[in-house]
């Protein structure tokens, strides 16, 4: 027999049951769910303009079609998150088209421009792998039913993006010479940015409401390890160096974490460690292309508004 209070929200969560509607949620859960959805939706949404600027540099019509298909997928994934947010009482229009660029909650990496096909495919191999780890965890663990179910196809589509990233990275590396040098340079600046993507290390993050509410199941460091365990062996297998290595069963970074990044030069200074306060300040200030990226989908909205 279930205890008498088995109908309460906490009891539902504890039993591992899915939450299906706002009427079942505590206000804190609803707030945390919305926050998690906004980060996810913003990340998918901003990847569209970021990838588009680089997809224009595709080396063939087929490659361009693949790039555009990936962008279409990302917009569809964003739509899942914003659609759920609307059902939870938020306005999609306000969130997507009327928010200040600095108020978006996507990872800092997307504020640093992808400027070549090589950088796009490295993003597919590393940024989409990060998305795959984060969304895969939500898909498996999330206590909010509508989101968990909405992610089934997202996982298959992210896999397609990963394949594009890996196939092309391998091809570019095999080409050697200047092409491989460009690939290595892209990995050099994008690898640490993706390591950072997973957020504060667990020892600095004392409490996670997302974990308490089973919005996700793995900690920042567990997700970071999962990402490293796929990206490091892959890059090594194609002859590309990454600043991390395996020690016993886990991966260790070969540079101070965190450390200083020059976004304009796309260069890390591994000799200049910094504090997490410095990193948080950099994230809050956003990166060089934040306003430009957001403008790519916001600028025409008011112009074409049709009022009934």
């Amino acid at each position, binding site marked *: 027999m279930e205890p008498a209070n088995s109908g309460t929200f906490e009891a539902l969560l504890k039993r591992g049951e899915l939450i299906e509607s706002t009427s079942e949620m505590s206000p804190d859960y609803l707030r945390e769910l919305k926050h998690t959805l906004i980060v996810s939706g913003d990340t998918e949404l901003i990847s569209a303009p970021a990838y588009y600027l680089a997809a224009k540099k595709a080396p063939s019509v087929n490659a361009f079609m693949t790039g555009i298909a990936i962008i279409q997928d990302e917009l569809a994934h964003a739509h899942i998150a914003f659609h759920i947010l609307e059902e939870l009482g938020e306005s999609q229009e306000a969130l997507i088209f009327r928010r200040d660029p600095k108020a978006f909650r996507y990872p800092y990496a997307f504020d640093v421009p992808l400027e070549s096909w090589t950088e796009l495919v490295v993003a597919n191999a590393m940024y989409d792998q990060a998305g795959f780890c984060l969304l895969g965890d939500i898909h498996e663990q999330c206590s909010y039913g509508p989101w968990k179910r909405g992610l089934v*196809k997202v996982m298959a589509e992210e896999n*397609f993006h990963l394949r594009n990233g890996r*196939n092309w990275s391998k091809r570019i590396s095999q080409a050697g010479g200047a092409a491989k040098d460009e690939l290595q340079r892209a990995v050099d600046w994008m690898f640490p940015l993706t390591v950072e993507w997973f957020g504060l290390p667990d020892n600095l993050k004392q409490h996670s409401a997302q974990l308490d509410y089973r919005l996700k199941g793995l900690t920042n460091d567990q997700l970071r390890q999962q990402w490293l365990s796929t990206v490091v062996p892959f890059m090594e297998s194609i002859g590309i160096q990454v600043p991390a290595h395996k020690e016993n069963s886990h991966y260790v970074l070969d540079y101070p974490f965190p450390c200083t990044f020059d976004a304009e030069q796309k260069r890390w200074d591994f000799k200049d460690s910094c504090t997490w306060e410095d990193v948080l300040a950099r994230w809050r200030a956003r990166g060089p292309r934040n306003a430009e990226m957001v403008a790519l989908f916001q600028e025409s909205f008011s112009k074409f508004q049709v009022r009934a």
Partner: protein
Amino acid sequence: MTSLAASLEARVWAALAEIDDPEMPVNLVDLGLIYGLEVGEGTVRLRLTFTAMGCPASDMIVGDIRERLLAEPGIGDVVIDVVWDPPWSAARLTPDGRQALQAWGLAV
């Protein structure tokens, strides 16, 4: 056809059935993309279509076929003719392919 060629042809079909579409959880044979194949002296020539002319995975599919068939003993060359006639439609799905796509949530 010699029995050797017949067994090679059977192996080629089996190998193609191991290759999944890059976007959907269904293999290329069950998806109905292979319109036919001929095996010769170490050579496979196959007719391949895509579900749409703008298929974003076309390069990957061609690459996957080439890589898998070249790994098959006795095959040294793979020639792929991409064809559009007759156009692909859901009628080309095998019963297994239809079931796989329906299980994934596609109305086919």
